[in-house]
């Protein structure tokens, strides 16, 4: 569709005096909506360069005198360097753990014959009914009893198995041609070798997509780390933004510092989205079914 309409509009441009007023409106509408959606970020970027005096001059929306030094302050003095490392470690463990566990589970569901297959799959899917707030008090209790408070296990363990990831890999495996699978088995390939040499190479896009979804989701965690990590130095960057609210200097809130912190906390998932938008979009299209 894209190519057809492109050639059509090229044609339209070649015809003298025939300006496509409708397309001009569409472009205008898009530019305005995208500008409005991005405006808060743009302003946050600008304000992140201002010192407190400049911030308190409300109509001052120019680049401030601080340059990048607010970023240095927030990373060092306000511990955001540590929080960022904590968030990266947490998110990477969740991504790798979830992808690995879900690939194993999908391999069993699609390529193994065993009793109560349907029930097993339903058992996994039904966990969609149990988001964290539904089980938050007993989960907190459990972590206390395990002695997992303030550990990486507490903020990664509950997230490394998932109905969504198993569902997506299962859908994908089922779409792989039967002939390929039969050939592999005739050659006497064991299940793990089959997973490693056949399934994973054929699922690269899906694995990338699930990884992006999981990374963005993990990075966004706030409520659970807030509750379970009482040791500030082990906290994730989203909760770090909560600590930052107390940032003040001679009674004035240091909003420039807070904006710098917000920008830093946004960068990793935003970069991942921009670089990996293709597999992400493909994977989400399957998720709806």
């Amino acid at each position, binding site marked *: 569709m*894209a190519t057809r*309409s492109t050639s059509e*509009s090229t044609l339209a441009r070649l015809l003298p005096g025939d300006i496509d007023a409708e*397309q001009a409106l*569409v*472009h205008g*509408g*898009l530019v305005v*909506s*995208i500008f409005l*959606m991005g405006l*808060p*970020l743009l*302003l*946050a970027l600008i304000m992140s360069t201002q010192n407190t005096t400049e911030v308190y001059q409300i*109509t001052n929306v120019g680049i401030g005198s601080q340059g990048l030094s607010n970023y240095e302050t927030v990373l060092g003095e306000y511990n955001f360097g540590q929080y960022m490392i904590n968030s990266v470690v947490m998110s990477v463990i969740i991504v790798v753990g979830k992808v690995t*566990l*879900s690939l*194993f589970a999908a391999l*069993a569901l699609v390529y*193994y*014959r*065993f*009793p109560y297959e349907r029930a*097993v799959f339903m058992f*996994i899917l039904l*966990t*969609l*009914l149990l*988001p964290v707030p*539904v*089980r*938050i008090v*007993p989960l*907190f209790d*459990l972590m206390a009893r395990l002695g997992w408070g303030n550990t990486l296990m507490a903020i990664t363990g509950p997230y*490394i*198995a998932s109905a969504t990831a*198993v569902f997506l890999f299962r859908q994908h495996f089922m779409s792989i041609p039967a002939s390929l699978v039969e050939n592999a088995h005739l050659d006497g390939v064991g*299940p793990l070798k089959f997973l490693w040499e056949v399934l994973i190479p054929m699922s690269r896009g899906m694995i990338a997509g699930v990884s992006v979804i999981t990374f963005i989701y993990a990075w*966004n965690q706030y*409520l659970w780390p*807030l509750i379970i990590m009482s040791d500030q130095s082990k906290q994730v960057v*989203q*909760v770090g*933004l909560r600590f*930052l*609210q107390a940032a003040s200097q001679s009674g004035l809130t240091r909003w420039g510092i807070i*904006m710098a*912190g*917000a920008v830093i*906390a*946004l960068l990793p*998932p*935003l970069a991942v*989205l*921009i670089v990996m938008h293709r597999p992400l*979009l493909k994977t*989400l299209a399957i998720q*709806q079914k």
Partner: protein
Amino acid sequence: MPEFTKPYESRWQAFLLLLPTFAVLIAFLYYPGVETFRLSLQQTILLGTRKTFVGLENYATLATSSAYHWSFAISVAFAAVVVVGTLVASLFVAYLLFQVDVGSSTYLIAAIWPYALPTAVAASVLLFLLHPSLGIITYVLESLTGTSLDWFTNGPQAFAIVAVVAIWKQLGYNIIFMVASLNNIPETLTESAKLDGVGHLKMLYRVYVPLMSPTLVFLVVMNTIYAFFQTFPLVDLMTSGGPNEATNLLIFKLYRDAFEFSNLGLASAESVVLFAIVAILMYVQLRLSESYTTYA
């Protein structure tokens, strides 16, 4: 199910492959999930050191608590505003993305990025930009409209501001699904409608929206779950439930009852109510998507 005969027979291998997923789901999802029900029938006293069975008393407390009724009512209203606001704004942008002739992939990324926006970042940024006395957006809005924005003390304004931030963050997710859905509509349909001289707005409501309805139902369900479950950072960072309880959503009240007031039995009963909400929503989604499949 796949058409081929399954190549592997070993039951214990299948068991081993499923074991890690099952272990995590049972330990961290099912077990605490079931425990929530049990705890909701208990009362904890002396800072959680003693528990006594109280039957349905916690539910009775919720049923008669005007604070809980209020929190429930504003959560429903909040979800309604967020769902409608997100759908309308996203549909507008998605329709433009569908119509545009050149640059559509660049526009697409520029429009879906809020999918990657952490809720706490959205809250921090707009807390400042919409700050009653310091915010530049507040300043512009006040000079344009001649009204004064005072949402640190004005409840309805605070409710509206938190809803706007919630909508902003959710636009990317909705636009992704809407654009995919629009691109699936057969082009012949668009062309024949154009030949009949049907206007844009009419096309959108008469032709596209009905064809997108499975996606729209899915998004209504996902946005509702989002509004109930994932808006905690907004309330926590922007309003702390105030002013005058105006933004004390169920999720925030649950957090406070459990972790500030250590009322674990009552908080568990609140969790059970949230479970009922998510169960109903998932059921609706399942039934409706089934009926669409049958219809198609």
